[in-house]
């Protein structure tokens, strides 16, 4: 066993070295723009209630599934530019692209919307690529991916009408959405370019605000590179009453479908009343490292996973 472990750790050593360079590069990128690096609780009394994200319980509290609520509480208190690397925990998520414990990078900008945040993401990834010695493209699996800017962008509506033959904005069937996304939409993206898919149906807004002038969609955008879902960006919802209503609906759905009780994150909801217009994003660090290491599995970029911890 020990021999296997030593061999495995020796094999992934080049990836872990590159991972450390990437973390350095991310810090440099944000520090250079005067973002403040923060740390928020890994264990907290409430997490955002989400029907498809199952948190680990820790005593009476929960392990964080994302640092979003605490970071937005800081924005509501007047902090303007924040970033954080945080360990996040999600039950039952294990596969080539998932480990129940993973590293998330989140950043928030007061006064920005999701377009600005996607621009940050593009600049961050290309700057890291340059730092690692890549020119305009990276190799991932069988594909040479041209990462030059700007990245191709399409709406959720366009993507689904073209590849799955239906429009989730006029008829939002969340169950069908996920299956068709995985089976039809994602495979239709150009494998040699990143893809930004924007403007999710309003019922899938989560913590994003609805688009001014088009309340059928939310200002939410996701970045996909090499078939990997890399980042999820929002123009953040800054309306406390609407946020409370969405959370209560989610709590009711979780109770009805899964018989789980989730508390309402009251301190967060209270803070939303002073949240300025802002944009934010969650980016999977392990997956970013996978892309830059041409690693087929998340196991290749983590020293220990849930299977061998």
């Amino acid at each position, binding site marked *: 066993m020990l021999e296997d472990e030593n061999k495995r750790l020796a094999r992934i050593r080049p990836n872990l070295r590159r991972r450390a360079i990437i973390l350095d590069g991310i810090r440099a990128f944000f520090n250079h723009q005067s973002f403040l690096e923060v740390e928020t609780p890994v264990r907290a009394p409430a997490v955002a209630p989400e029907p498809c994200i199952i948190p680990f319980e820790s005593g009476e509290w929960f392990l964080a599934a994302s640092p979003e609520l605490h970071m937005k509480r800081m924005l509501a208190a007047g902090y303007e530019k924040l970033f954080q690397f945080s360990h996040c925990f999600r039950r039952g998520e294990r*596969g080539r692209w998932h480990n129940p414990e993973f590293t998330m990078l989140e950043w928030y900008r007061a006064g920005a919307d999701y377009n600005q945040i996607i621009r940050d993401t593009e600049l961050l990834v290309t700057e890291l690529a340059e730092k690692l010695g890549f020119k305009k493209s990276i190799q991932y699996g069988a594909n040479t991916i041209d990462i030059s800017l700007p990245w191709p962008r399409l709406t959720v509506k366009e993507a689904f009408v073209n590849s799955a033959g239906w429009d989730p904005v006029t008829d939002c069937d969340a*169950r069908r959405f996920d299956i068709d*996304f*995985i089976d039809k939409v994602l495979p239709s993206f150009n494998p040699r370019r990143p893809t930004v898919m924007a403007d999710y149906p309003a019922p899938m807004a*989560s913590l994003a605000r609805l688009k001014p002038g088009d309340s059928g969609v939310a200002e939410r955008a996701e970045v996909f590179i090499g078939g990997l879902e890399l980042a999820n960006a929002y123009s953040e919802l800054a309306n406390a009453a609407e946020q409370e209503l969405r959370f209560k609906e989610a709590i009711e759905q979780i109770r009805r479908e899964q018989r789980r009780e989730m508390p309402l994150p009251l301190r967060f909801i209270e803070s939303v009343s002073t949240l300025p217009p802002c944009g934010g994003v969650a980016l999977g660090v392990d997956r970013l490292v996978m892309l830059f290491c041409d690693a087929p599995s998340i196991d290749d970029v983590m020293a220990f996973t849930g299977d061998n911890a």
Partner: protein
Amino acid sequence: MEISGVHKNTKLLIDGLLYNVEDTEFTKPGKGQSVYRLKLRNLRDGGITNRTYRSGDKVDDVRTDTQEEQFLYKDNDGFVFMNSETFEQITIPETIIGDKKHYLKEGTMVTMLMWGEQPLEVNMPITVDLKVVQTELPLKTATITAQQKQSVLETGYNIGTPTFIKEGDIIRVDTRTGAYVERVNK
């Protein structure tokens, strides 16, 4: 069982047919449902199909056992084996045996996967030793490079061997690949 508990080699009953799970793939949009893609092998005819499940879906898994069996002979109904504990005989149709018939000679011990009384799979030892019954004479020109020639084994299997192999030699064959391993004359 819950779909989340399915692993490689779990046996599932789907629409009355029995499948072996060859591979599982977990995928999940960040905010979306977990999706499980299973690659399934039909245990009757070996056909491969893919199926997609969502988190919370239930599947019927079946409990299987293994037993040690010795190959006795082949007749018109199939391959006849004997349980090494109970001495009961069982006939396995050629469709289940498939390519493994190339490695079966009298006395070979196999591990049989059973679902109740029903045999599902015959698992061979990793290597078997078989006699060469027919082969071309070594060619003079073939002594320098590692050339291959065709030889016929006692089971009727045609196999590529090195040119030095003679009729009557016993050779070791890898049952996973069907390839020659070494000469093991006893």
